[in-house]
């Protein structure tokens, strides 16, 4: 186990430097003045340009700039936003909201996804299965902003069941609609994964043995079939975090949820380049850390993983 953790941590190092270098390279090694390019058509104030130049050490060679930047990240210094606030402070304020939204979304997608997938798998080829397959395919085909607008229009404007934008402090009841939108795509994926996994497990020998031992269906389904079908679903949830981050950017923007995604969304639509770069970097680092933690947990749960190179 210790060997596995060490190997996994060592593998994470080049990826950490690679991703940050890549983002930095894309922005600051382009021809022309990167600071002016980041503002597009707008002309920033000379004071801001000077501040950004100093912050990114643009007088130094490229590789030195990058190393200074990385050193800053290790000290918790993620840069300064367009309005002059440290990105780290904004992150501390907005992250709890995004976390709350993500937890509600994860709850919806796993609970409903596994239940629907299990019923579909157990009734393969029946009406419920066919309709859940069609619905999941449609959900996968709908871009998240389309789902968000339809949800906002139907439940917010037409039916009046939910508020179209989230109120101050982001209370949980306001977050339910955005969370359902955020959960919809992964819900469809979880339904399909659970379904095919349940069908595969149901055909295995130990399930037949359980039936021939005379165990009741009420025991076989949860204990023998479901538990053994959930491994691919757990794996999917790890990679799902990236989908959640991108989805949160769009969903939080549309519903005006005061989270990390919305900060990025606002920075993008106001073309505040430096803030965009800082927040994308932060999101990628979050994504890397979550994946690392999930991988380590996964090695703990499933011994087979530890021995695979």
């Amino acid at each position, binding site marked *: 186990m210790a060997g596995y953790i060490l190997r996994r941590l060592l593998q994470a190092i080049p990826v950490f430097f690679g991703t940050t270098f890549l983002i930095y390279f894309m922005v600051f090694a382009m021809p022309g003045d990167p600071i002016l390019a980041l503002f*597009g058509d707008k002309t920033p104030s000379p004071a801001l340009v000077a501040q950004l130049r100093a912050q990114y050490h643009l007088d130094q060679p490229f590789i030195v700039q990058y190393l200074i930047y990385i050193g800053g990240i290790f000290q918790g210094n993620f840069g300064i936003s367009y309005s002059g606030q440290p990105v780290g402070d904004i992150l501390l304020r907005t992250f709890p909201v995004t976390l709350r939204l993500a937890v509600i979304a994860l709850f919806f997608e796993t609970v409903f996804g596994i239940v629907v997938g299990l019923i579909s798998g157990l009734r393969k080829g029946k009406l419920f299965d066919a309709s859940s397959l069609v619905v999941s395919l449609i959900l996968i085909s*709908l871009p998240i902003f389309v789902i968000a*607008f339809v949800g906002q229009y139907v439940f917010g404007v037409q039916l009046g069941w939910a508020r179209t934008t989230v109120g101050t402090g982001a209370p949980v009841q306001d977050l339910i609609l955005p969370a359902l939108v955020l959960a919809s795509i992964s819900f469809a994926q979880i339904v399909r994964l659970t379904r095919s996994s349940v069908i595969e497990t149901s055909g295995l020998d130990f399930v037949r043995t359980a039936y021939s031992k005379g165990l009741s269906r009420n025991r076989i389904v949860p204990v023998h079939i479901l538990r053994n079908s959930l491994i691919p679903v757990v794996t999917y949830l790890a990679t799902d975090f990236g989908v959640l981050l991108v989805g949160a950017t769009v969903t939080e923007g549309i519903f005006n949820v005061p989270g990390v995604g919305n900060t990025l969304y606002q920075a993008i639509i106001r073309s505040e380049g430096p803030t965009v770069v800082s927040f994308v970097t932060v999101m990628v680092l979050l994504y890397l850390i979550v994946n690392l933690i999930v991988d380590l947990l996964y090695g703990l749960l499933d011994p087979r993983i530890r021995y695979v190179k």
Partner: protein
Amino acid sequence: MSNDLFEHPVTASEPGASHFVAPLEETPLVAIDVVNVADKPSNLWIDAWRDARRRPTFWVSGALIILVVVVALFPWLFTSVLPNNDCQLLNSNGGPTAGHPLGFTKQGCDVYSRIINGTSTSLSVGIIVIVLTTVLGLVFGAFAGFYGGVVDAVLSRIGDIFFSIPYILAAVVIMSVLVNYRSVWTISLAIGLFAWPATARVLRAEILRVKNADFVMASEALGVSSLRILLRHVLPNSIAPVIAITTISLAAAIVAEATLSFLGVGLGSSIMSWGNDINQAQRDLRTNPQTLIYPSLALSITVFAFILMGEVIRDALDPKARALR
């Protein structure tokens, strides 16, 4: 070892034999083991075609894809209204009228005509992105899987780095920098540059499986060069899963372009694109929802068609998946 097998051939049961052996014709083995030489030779692709053409989903998605391609290539067959020249503020947010079945946008442009003329943008981005991801994915996946060792370690780590940045976020950064160069080509480049590791991973896994096959060993024994083995024997036998994932990538690329345009970092506003139209229409959601619904519908139907086709291809090419239906 006993020689019973040779002394008593197991072709039929004889009186006095120590145990009964059923004649071959009566065993279930006949169904799977006996090849009728008169039949036409079959392979994975012929089997896949036979499997796919029996399914209604194949014909539905195929028809939708053909429709999308025809609309993209010949938009004038479907509308004679020019998407930009006829805009009159008099018609702003107007409902359907004769010749303008879906009404007007806020700028008074014909919604139907804009949707028809935006089709080629989405399709071009999709095609350029899959060409990019397939070329990069083939090179990285094939060499990493086939040569292994240091080559694999280096190429796979490079893939990991690109895979660790969600491609829409990466494209947001690239398009923020390329603010003055926003076109179908740059947006496709921005998406494709970070979307290829998925293809490379699928191909690498498949090549690892195929490269231990007997026919590879036979080629080695015959002295075929390793590059030739890779190109002529291993790659053609590992390409099937790549084709399925490519069709689904095309749909994902179309969604990515629309998302970026929706966020305002996609194509310039002069380029006709469903994402741009949805971006423009979002402020009028309460008063004039159809300007938002119709381009969203066109986008969703196109994406649906390619995802459905991708699933049909994946299932048809994977004999194991047939059991799950």
